[in-house]
């Protein structure tokens, strides 16, 4: 470290330039990570907050958009309920609808039809739970858009009226669309095309309904079971019995609109960013080591072990990487907190920590490859002229 620190101070111009690049990469990385987390939240926060281990889709449903495509019925539900390790199984309806509020504002809603007394029912942070056929509990994120408890929402085309009775705790969105929880029976009424035109559905409407279909079966595994852990083998028996295709909660994210494409694009950008970072740091230290070639040969001739010079070079790279990555992350977090409301952006400690560690680690790998040159320097080349 003796030489490393003094050279950092001496060649501070050159090292600051390199540090600036590392810092900018770190800023970009924080912003990408924020965007990534934001998009994930926007895409699947509604699923993440459900106490669900897995979703069973009708067998053969295309994974893409499976939530709105799949159709399951009570027979399939019964088959799943008969499976061991299944603590809870319920039908759930999912569909995306357009609507207008009573003051004419247009909203898009993901309708999650759930049993009002079941394990999927939302616990509203504000207002009431699902307690009547026309009552809906909507995502907290809609509150800013002029929607409040008591707001009446009219579904487009069928003109059925629903009333906001409560808000979820925190954002609940699915495929970037805010979620409205409603009683499964009301969801089925709408799906069956029997929802009343121009008025709110009532118990009387539900009484006449003869329709047992929904979109998916939400499963909760018994505590500690394979099923709860999301193991594919644990799904096999139930899938055969119920003719379903079951995906763990994590896997089911891919079945929500656009999720896979977005996360893949972002991870690809991140991978490229890491690679660029490692290459740039590697190139810098290669040039730096070559520039110091004669000086290093002199030190080797004086008897410095290759290990000593290697450790020194790596210490130098670590100091540079850690300090400027930290600065970059701080700047990135600062910039991120200035992001406008409504942009899918979420700063989360864990992905940022992982990304910072990766930036530093891969940068160190790049530097190590460059610094390894010191082991190939011939001490004998210290003799003779100043090449």
């Amino acid at each position: 470290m003796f030489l490393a620190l003094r050279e950092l101070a001496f060649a501070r111009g050159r090292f600051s330039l390199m540090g600036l690049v590392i810092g900018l990469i770190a800023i970009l990385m924080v912003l990408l990570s924020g965007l990534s987390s934001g998009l994930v939240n926007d895409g699947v926060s509604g699923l993440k907050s459900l106490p669900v281990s897995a979703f069973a889709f009708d067998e053969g449903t295309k994974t893409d958009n499976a939530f709105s495509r799949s159709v399951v019925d009570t027979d399939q539900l019964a088959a799943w309920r008969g499976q061991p390790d299944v603590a809870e199984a319920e039908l759930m309806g999912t569909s995306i609808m357009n609507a207008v509020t009573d003051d004419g504002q247009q909203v898009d809603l993901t309708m999650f039809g759930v049993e009002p007394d079941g394990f999927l029912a939302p616990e509203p942070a504000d207002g009431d739970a699902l307690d009547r056929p026309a009552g809906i509990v909507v995502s907290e994120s809609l509150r800013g858009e002029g929607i409040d408890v008591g707001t009446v929402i009219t579904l487009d085309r069928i003109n059925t009226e629903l009333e906001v009775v409560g808000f979820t705790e925190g954002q609940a969105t699915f495929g970037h669309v805010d979620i409205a929880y409603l009683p499964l029976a009301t969801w089925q009424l709408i799906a069956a095309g029997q929802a009343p035109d121009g008025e709110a559905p009532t118990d009387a409407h539900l009484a006449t309904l003869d329709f047992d279909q929904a979109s998916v079966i939400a499963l909760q595994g018994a505590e500690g079971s394979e099923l709860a852990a999301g193991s594919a083998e644990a799904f096999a028996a139930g899938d055969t019995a119920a003719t379903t295709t079951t995906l763990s909660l994590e896997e089911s994210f891919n079945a929500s609109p656009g999720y896979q494409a977005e996360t893949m694009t972002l991870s690809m950008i991140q991978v490229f960013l890491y690679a660029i970072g490692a290459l740039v740091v590697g190139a810098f230290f290669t040039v730096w080591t070559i520039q110091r070639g004669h000086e290093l040969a002199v030190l080797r001739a004086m008897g410095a072990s290759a290990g000593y010079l290697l450790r020194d070079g790596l210490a130098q790279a670590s100091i540079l990487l850690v300090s400027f990555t930290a600065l970059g992350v701080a700047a990135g977090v600062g910039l991120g907190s200035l992001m406008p409301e409504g942009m899918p952006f979420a700063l989360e400690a864990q992905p940022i920590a992982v990304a910072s560690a990766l930036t530093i680690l891969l940068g160190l790998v790049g530097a190590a490859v460059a610094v390894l040159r010191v082991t190939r320097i011939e001490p004998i080349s210290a003799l003779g002229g100043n090449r």
Partner: protein
Amino acid sequence: MSTTVDHHREPAQDRSAPGPAGILGLHLRDVTLEVGDGGERVRALDRVDLSVTPGEFVAVIGPSGAGKSSLLAVAGALATPTSGVVEVLGQDLAGLRGQGQLAAFRRRHLGFVFQSGNLVPALTAADQLRLARRIAHRGGRSRSFDPAPLLEAVDMGHRAGHRPGQLSGGERQRVGIARALVNEPSLLLVDEPTAALDRRRSQDIVALLARQCHQRGIAGVMVTHDHDVLDHCDRVVEMVDGRLVDHRSVTLRP
């Protein structure tokens, strides 16, 4: 370390016998060094014999390509001779295995002075000496090391905080000499120390080198082109085509 007895070995060829001038200092016996790869091999050193005793400062002169640098390399554990014996401080260098042991031997027992100092640009004069101390693996002892006395010894006490860029050629060379002395070497190897200096400074530098060798009992070998500085040397040897042709073993100083 072999316990088997080699019956074919003649006593006269025993490579580990002490040199004629005693155990300390530098002894090259019948040293040949071939360089170059494969087909075109050049004899950089051709059956060279040379002994330098502790406290003696010897100059090596000769035309370019004569093998002077090769001599320093072989004596300085930087190159392994093709044949012959190199002994420093009673140690046969052939007994050192691998780059690691050679480097350890260099940092413990040898001092190098290079052309125009070859200092580390980032370090102040005092730090040049501290780095040399650290390189010699002296852990705690390297931290308590005080470079001031050595810098004083080369008249550089007033430049302790200056970097090479702020020093003149002669001053750089003085710091380089102090750096070579940090780890109390037994053998000092000096490569063209006056190549970049004017006449008066050259005299000062070589006089300083000779004085340090005499005072500290160091065996010194200096390669030089500069015939004006030979007066300061105890002995001058000349190389031509890899051979020591002229042992002008004039003792210039008692």
